[in-house]
């Protein structure tokens, strides 16, 4: 079995699966149970300044979006940072790290944007002998109204400034946790790098309202008839997170900056995808909150089996997909495919037909006996039929080999050509 042992900015863990800073890591009891279940590390629930702890709402703090069979696809929360006394958290962190020296224990922090506040908390955290700190510049609700969390994460200059303070006032590795609630993730990532961050972790939650109660007209979760936007997470946010991770992994300035990938990771596959896009560790919150700590066992067995089947090490996988993330303009326009419906697998639901006929290119014929066939002369290969088909692999995309004639355009398929040299592109560079 492939080894999953991980070293990330000098922090070792037996596997790359960490629990993200959130309720699952809010206390020793949870974290110890998580370690017993097999988690490689945790980022402790965000600590705030010393003094009276923050308070949470006393009504529901989560809203949800479900898929078929009430599968939880997205969760949103209006929870704040830890509401337990700083002293208690620090004592427990110290104890946990002492009892579990082989696991990663990183502590998430969020204090006001003042150097003294950061200096003070860093000193106390350092005393726990934890492995590193993560700066929570991501929380999009509540704390942001107080000038913290995503209020910092949305201003690259603040990120750089605070990161610099932290590197100045501590020997610990510093991870900067980024908010997705910005237009271009590269700016905050570059700022973190300039400030001296050892790594970035992303994403934190996405600002959201999950639903509106149509009887009380309150957003959910409803607190006495009112709601406030929350932070969205879970499987629904994974695509957003993957893109942001990839953007940082391939950006000329931030390339090589270690990344802890977060957002919707539920299975070994999700984790492997983040790793392939450059993540050195992955962090999980919603999946653990939905299914319990034991899911890590599937992640461990699945990732190890996958690596074995590919004959790769974990290191080989890391960043393996990054070179394949490119700009649209470089995509091969001579890659011509056609949808193919496997009649043996087809259950004749007709969803492909409805999708293509009503909303796309009228490229599927419905023949007597509910036989659905692709009309190559119309198929633009958009993939919609593949995506709406309920049977995996029933509809596939088959490439036309170079030299074949595309019945839709009458053109002979070539090897490679992209937009940069396309005749319709007014900016086209002459092919040399």
């Amino acid at each position, binding site marked *: 079995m492939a080894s999953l042992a991980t070293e990330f900015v000098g922090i070792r863990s037996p596997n790359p699966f960490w629990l993200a800073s959130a309720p699952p890591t809010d206390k020793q009891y949870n974290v110890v149970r998580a370690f017993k279940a097999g988690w490689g590390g945790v980022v402790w629930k965000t600590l705030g300044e010393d003094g009276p702890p923050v308070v949470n709402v006393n009504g529901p703090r989560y809203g949800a979006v479900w898929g078929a069979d009430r599968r939880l696809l997205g969760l949103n929360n209006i929870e704040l940072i830890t509401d337990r006394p700083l002293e208690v958290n620090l004592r427990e962190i110290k104890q946990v790290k002492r009892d579990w020296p082989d696991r990663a224990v990183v502590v998430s922090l969020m204090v006001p944007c003042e150097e003294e506040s950061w200096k003070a908390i860093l000193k106390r955290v350092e005393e726990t002998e934890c492995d590193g700190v993560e700066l929570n510049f991501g929380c999009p609700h509540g704390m942001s109204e107080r000038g913290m969390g995503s209020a910092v994460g949305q201003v690259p200059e603040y990120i750089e400034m605070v990161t610099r303070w932290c590197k100045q006032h501590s020997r610990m590795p510093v991870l900067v946790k980024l908010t997705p609630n910005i237009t271009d993730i590269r700016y905050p990532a570059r700022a973190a790098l300039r400030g001296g961050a050892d790594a970035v972790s992303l994403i934190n939650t996405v600002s959201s309202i999950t639903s509106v109660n149509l009887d009380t007209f309150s957003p959910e979760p409803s607190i006495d008839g009112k709601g406030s936007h929350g932070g969205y997470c879970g499987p629904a946010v994974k695509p957003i997170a993957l893109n942001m991770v990839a953007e940082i992994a391939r950006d000329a300035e931030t390339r090589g900056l270690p990344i802890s990938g977060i957002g919707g990771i539920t299975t*070994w596959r999700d984790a492997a995808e983040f790793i392939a896009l450059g993540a050195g560790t992955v962090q999980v919150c919603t999946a653990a909150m939905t299914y*319990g700590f034991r899911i890590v066992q599937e992640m461990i067995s*699945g990732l190890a089996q*996958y690596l074995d089947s590919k004959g790769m090490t974990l290191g080989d996988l890391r960043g393996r997909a990054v070179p394949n993330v490119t700009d649209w303009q470089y995509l091969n326009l001579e890659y011509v495919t056609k949808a193919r419906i496997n009649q043996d697998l087809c259950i004749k639901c007709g969803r492909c037909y409805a999708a293509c006929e009503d909303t796309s290119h009228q490229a599927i014929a419905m023949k007597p006996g509910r036989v659905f066939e692709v009309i190559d002369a119309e198929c633009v290969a958009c993939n919609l039929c593949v995506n709406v088909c309920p049977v*995996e692999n029933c509809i596939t995309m088959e490439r036309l080999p170079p030299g074949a004639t595309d019945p839709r355009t009458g053109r002979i398929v070539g090897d490679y050509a992209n937009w940069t040299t396309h005749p319709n592109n007014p900016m086209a560079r002459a092919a040399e």
Partner: protein
Amino acid sequence: MTNSPLTPGIVSGRLPAAALAANFADVEPPLDRHEAMVAADRCYFCHDAPCITACPTAIDIPLFIRQIATGTPEAAATTIWTQNILGGMCARVCPTETLCEEACVREAAEGKPVEIGRLQRYATDIAMAKGLHPFTRAASTGRRVAVVGAGPAGLACAHRLAMHGHDVTIYDARDKPGGLNEYGIAAYKTTGGFAQAEVAWLLSIGGIVIETGKALGRDFTLDDLRARFDAVFLGLGLQGVNALRVPGEALARDAVDFIAGLRQAGDWADVPVGRDVVVIGGGMTAVDAAVQSKLLGAETVTIVYRRGPEKLSASVYEQEHAKTAGVRILTNAAPVAVHGDGAAAEVEFAYTEEGPDGLRQLPERFRLKADQVFKAIGQTLAGVPEGLALTGGKIAVTGPGRTSIPGVWAGGDCAAGGEDLTVTAVAEGRDAAEDIHAALAAGRGRG
């Protein structure tokens, strides 16, 4: 073809070859990938899942289903085999409707449990087809253990012992290993020679020698084994059969015998069966004998059970299966005689009634036409070595299979406690192996 279901007497070839082949095909065909994905998707990954508790071998069911759902059936198989080395057979033969699937929360929610048994088969079939055997032997301990009986209990015990580095010799009186997996389970539950394939797969761990055709009590004694080995495990199963104790009993045949013959037949067309078959009993063996008689082409098959329908030990699922196959189930009727001249012709029954003093036969009688009569009223322990304490007709054990004789363990059907099921035998064999291993490590064992 000359014979048909209407041919009188006990004859073979009542149905055309194609019909026989179809009848004895996999009763529950394997799931394909799409079906498995849809089925796996229904698992809620419950906390402290009730299905695990309901499984005698305590397989981590939610984990293996999640591993299937994420495209790693091989990892799922490892999860299964870690607890139950005969997970492939159990996937086929376990009465899941009274075990894991009965406990599934979706049974409570929708009356439709997650198809745990079929998913288990999906995973183990894939891994076995790939030749995966995810266990290796520990360094040799030099300790030797004798296992008597190559049924599920003995095999599970041997595998676990071999894993711990002990050298195991299994003795079995029969020609082939497997116990009732090979000679008892209904043919349509384990098709394609699966029982032998699974034994071969299990043995691939190494460190296990099987000697077939060697019977305890005939070829060697328990004392011989105790002298030559560091520990002994008895997985003898139940070799005796309860008698009807009615006139004409000699005209009836043991159902287990009939089934064993059927399981060993090279060709279904060679297996003779009566035109009118009567099976006496109310358990799994009765159902299996009846259904397979029907599948061989008997015209009428009737199970007759002496107590009321609620007392039938065959599960509701098994009963439905029998009825669907065309078997009639009569209850509250006890046999009083088998009539016939050299061969069975009729069975005479008395109606019965449950009273304050137990079951009572009523004066009223009826007869069923029968050219073949099967007895399936329970198997019993036979050929137990002297000196072993018994309880309730089985070998008395404490904890994980410790018998009254030091250094001798027992498990499976021959040992007291637990249901007589394949999966229970596996659990008991495995747990005894762990106890033997601990005892050997502690320098105990040979008494």
